[in-house]
Every structure is written in C-alpha cells, then in structure tokens.
C-alpha cells in the first residue's frame, strides 16, 4: 500500500489555483523532499494530506480519507507545520503530560531521553527557550510518537546552521527506520540532499519532476566546460547552462557519462542547480526560491 496517494488533487482559493490536478504517490519507508518556489502549492498539498483543508480529487493517506477521518489519521501521522508553533505559555513538563494524555502512541520516556541530550529544562516555559530549542523540543515530541508518516513543513526555517544540521542528524539516526515515511519541504535544499530518498519538484500546483535519489544520480550529470570546448558540449543538448567562475557549467538529462568526461569532471548536480534548471526552463518562476 502506498503511504500517500493522490490523483487529480485540486484546490482553489478564490480565483487562485493552488493545486492543479496534482498526482502523487509516496511509498512507505521513503524520505521525500517536496521542493518548490514560494506559492507553488507545497503547503497546500501538505495541508490536504493532513486533513486540514478540504480538496477536490482523490487522496488517500495510509488508506484513509484525510478530510473525513482526520482525528483517526492523527494517531498515525505526526507533523511539524512550521517553526515555533508550540504554545509559548506552556511548561515543558506540562506539554509532555498533555501529549502523553491525548496521544496513544507517545512514549514519554523516549521524549525525555531526547531532551536530556539538549539543554532544555523540563521546568522551563516554552517562551523562555530560544527558537532553536523550541524546534528541538518539537522534534523530541514528534520523534517520541510512533507514527507511520511524519510531515515536516519548513521545520528548520530561521534556525542557525548548527540546529539545522542537528535536526536532520537526529531525524535520520534516532527516528527513521525504513518503515516510517517522512515528507519534508524546505528551502535549504543542500541540507537535505543526502537525507532524501526521493525528490519531487512542484510548481504552480503541479509536480514537474519526480524521481528517486538513485535515479537522480544516474540521470542528471553536470560538467564544467572550458570555453574552447563549449560548442562541442552544447551539441550534446544540455538542459541548462550557467556560468561559474569564468567557465560554463552544463547540466545534462540522460547524458552519456563517457562522452561528457571528455570535457572535464562529470559530477552529480546539486538539487538546487537542478531545481533552477527545471523551474527555469519550465516557467521562469524562480524569483521566490531561496537556495
């Protein structure tokens, strides 16, 4: 069974089309990065998956209709919808009591174990914690929930690099076990490049690219070309070309590694570069992207 399955998912806010017949399938045990410019429909898609907004089209999450069976679904799904959404007035220990009280899959001892590795005191109120600590606290709670699907919408926005790195490290080391599914959206694409197993680009409410990371590494190649060889390289039809320190970097889709090696070092592009290439070709709507 697919963890998430959407067919023709549509959502309109007034005259703005946020999701334009989105098709998507996420198998269990994957870590999917959903990447797109601002306003591409990432958050709308996640909100639909979490049963937070009504939608048109077909959508099943863990075999359930998220809008109609939201409460039941929330036993198996946990999410961090944004940074710092924990109530500021609550005491950490009260927060743990509350989640333990309402969530049948929450392991309080586990959460306390995660918190012990941080400098968060259970007697503190959330408002006394720094932004990074609040993110750590939220992650500790979410990781102590034995959920089948974890959704992270910009979970590290505005955090400094140390917290961001820690965040994904603990997610991979202490949480992910190949039976859970994680869906993450972020603008800090490089940081998740080695974390993801699957990649999706979304633009204007549609999926414009979808591949596994294995596929990504085989399919997309990048080569830095000296000016005198540029014409020859261009003949191989790169999908995108950019300038870097006086050289041209050409990005190929399904390029021939042997042929390309003649121009220079062939390497896997970064997700960010591919993103610019795909979205740049696709719509030119890359103004909002911060990579």
């Amino acid at each position, binding site marked *: 069974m697919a963890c998430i399955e959407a067919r023709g998912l549509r959502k309109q806010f007034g005259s703005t089309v946020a999701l334009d017949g989105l098709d998507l399938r996420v198998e*269990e045990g994957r870590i999917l990065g959903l990447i797109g410019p601002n306003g591409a429909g990432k958050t709308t898609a996640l909100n639909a998956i*979490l049963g*937070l907004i*009504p939608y048109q089209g077909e959508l099943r999450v863990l075999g359930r209709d998220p809008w109609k069976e*939201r*409460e*039941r679904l*929330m*036993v*198996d799904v*946990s*999410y*961090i*919808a*944004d940074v*710092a*959404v*924990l*109530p*500021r*007035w*609550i*005491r950490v220990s*009260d927060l743990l*009591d*509350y*989640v333990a*009280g*309402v*969530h*049948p*899959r929450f392991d309080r001892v586990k959460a306390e174990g995660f918190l012990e590795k941080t400098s968060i005191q259970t007697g503190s109120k959330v408002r006394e914690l720094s932004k990074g600590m609040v993110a750590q606290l*939220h992650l500790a709670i979410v990781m102590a929930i034995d959920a*089948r699907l974890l959704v992270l919408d910009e979970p590290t926005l505005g955090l400094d690099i140390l917290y961001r790195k820690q965040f994904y490290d603990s997610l991979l080391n202490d949480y992910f076990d190949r*039976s859970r599914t994680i869906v993450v959206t972020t603008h800090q694409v490089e940081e998740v490049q080695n974390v993801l197993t699957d990649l999706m680009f979304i633009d204007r409410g549609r999926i414009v690219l979808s591949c596994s990371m294995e596929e990504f590494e085989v399919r997309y190649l990048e080569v830095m070309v000296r000016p005198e060889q540029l014409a020859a390289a261009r003949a191989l039809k790169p999908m995108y070309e950019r300038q870097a320190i006086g050289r041209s970097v050409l990005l190929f889709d399904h390029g021939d590694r042997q042929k390309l090696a003649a121009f220079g070092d062939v390497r896997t592009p970064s997700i960010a570069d591919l993103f610019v290439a795909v979205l740049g070709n696709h719509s030119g709507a890359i103004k909002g992207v911060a990579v």
Partner: protein
Amino acid sequence: MTAGSQVTADVQESAPAAMSGMGAFYWSVRRELWENRWIYIGQLGVGGVFLLGFVFNLSRWLTKLHGLSENDPAKYWNAVAEPFNIGAGLMMGTLILMSLFYSADALYGERRDRSIFFWKSLPVSDWTTVLAKASIPLVVLPLLAFAVTVAIHVVLLLLSCVVLPANGISLSILWKQLSIFQMWGLILYHLFTAHALWPFPVFCWLLLVSGWARRAPLLWAALPPAVIGALEKLIFGTNRFVTVVGTRVVGGGAPTDMTSGEMFPTGPMTHLTPLRYLAAPGLWIGLAIAAVCLVAAVRMRRYRDPV
C-alpha cells in the same frame, strides 16, 4: 510495515477512540487552565482585595451591628450578612467579566499564536476542543467563583470570631442569623442557574466569533447586537433586544428564585424555583442558540485559517 505491527495497529484501533473521549477532554480542560492562569489568579486576587477592603472598613460594619435591634429581622439579617453578600456579589461580577473575556479569546488565542498548528497535529477532535473550551464558563469558572466565595466567607467568619467578641458583640448573632451552609447552597445554585446556564448562549456566541475574527473578537461579537439594537430603536423606537441581551449577560431575568425584598438571593427567605426555571422557554431558547453557536464554532475551527 511488518504483519506483526499491522496486527498491533488494528488492536490499538479501539483504544484511540476511547482516549479521544474522556482522556482528550480531560487534558483539553487542563490545557485551558494552564493557558489561562489569569482566570484563577484573577479571582483569587479580587477575593484578596475584597478582604483587605473589608478589614479597612471593619469599623463601619461594627457600628452598624451595634445600632441594630432584633425587632426587624430582615434588616438585621442584611446587616449581619452584608460583608458575606458583598463578597459573594463581587465574585459573581468577576465571574461575569471573566466568562466574557475568556470566551472571546478562547478560539482566537490559539489562532493568534499559531499554536493551533500544534494542537491540530494531535488526535484531538475539534468537538473535544470546542466543548472543553465551552465547559470553562459553563462549569469551571462558576466552580472557581464558588470556591473563592467560600474561602472569602471562611476568612470572614474567622475574622468575626476575633473581632466581634473584642467589640462586645455576641457571636451568637452570627450563628443565629447566618446559616452559612444554606447560604453556600444558594450561591452555588445561583452561580450555575443565573451565571452559567442562563448566559451560556452569550458565551457560545463569543466562542464562535473568537473562532472567526481576524482581530478584536470582542468588538466583532458586540457589533451584530449593537446593529440590531440600533435598527430596532430606529424602526420601532424600542430597546427590547439590547435589554434582553444585556440582562442575559449579567444573569438577570432568570426565574431561578423568588426573594422577598432582599437584594441578594442568599437570604433566609429566598425561595428557589428550579421547576419554574427549567420550564422557562427563555432557558431552552438560549440553550438552542448555544448549541447552534457551538456547531458553528466547531466548523469554524475546522475551516478557518489562523490569524
């Protein structure tokens, strides 16, 4: 997912259903008490200020008691019970204000600080949350007001035990005049009938608006009644609507009891009329309005974006 964990998942299927019932409701109420500490700190504060005021005005009460004769029992009771009644009345006033302000912020606060994203990530239904919030002005606040009133009365009694004999007034007048347990029973009854159930539609209306408004929910909530009142005044020249709503808010007009000339429904002559109260169409119309508002508030929490 392995076959084993699938079985566990199915076995656990019924557990969450039970938990989302009582457990989730209990913890949702606890959450309200954590979030709104001011509702009990405020009540205790008002109680404390009243007691201080009483101590400073003690001599006035004593003079009043000195000049009394037992020939006029109603007047006598009023004088003896005065601080007890004023204390109870003050807590009722506090209760009204707190219920109004609490209800107007209940569904607004979590949208304003965006914590609704967190609450909604847990398996707690919108119904549970909204009912837990509605139970604060309906049950929790009146109980708190009652507890603080009783505490005030206990302190007043203890003070009297010291002060009255020291000023040559026999303590017996307290015991004779003031049947304190009956008084407490009457106060509890009054709090729930006049200040919780009777204005409940008002609280539910505020709850609904607090789930809708982008800012200043109390003002938005006051707007429709004000407009209706103004239109009524313009067209019919009357003030019925505003009067009805206003008396609801302060708990007036509820046929809870008949008092014989006493200002407070706590005197020995108070005659409770629970049947008349339960048979009053006003009560049921109010509760029907409350139910409609609650259903709408649940929908609001489901559909409405955070602020």
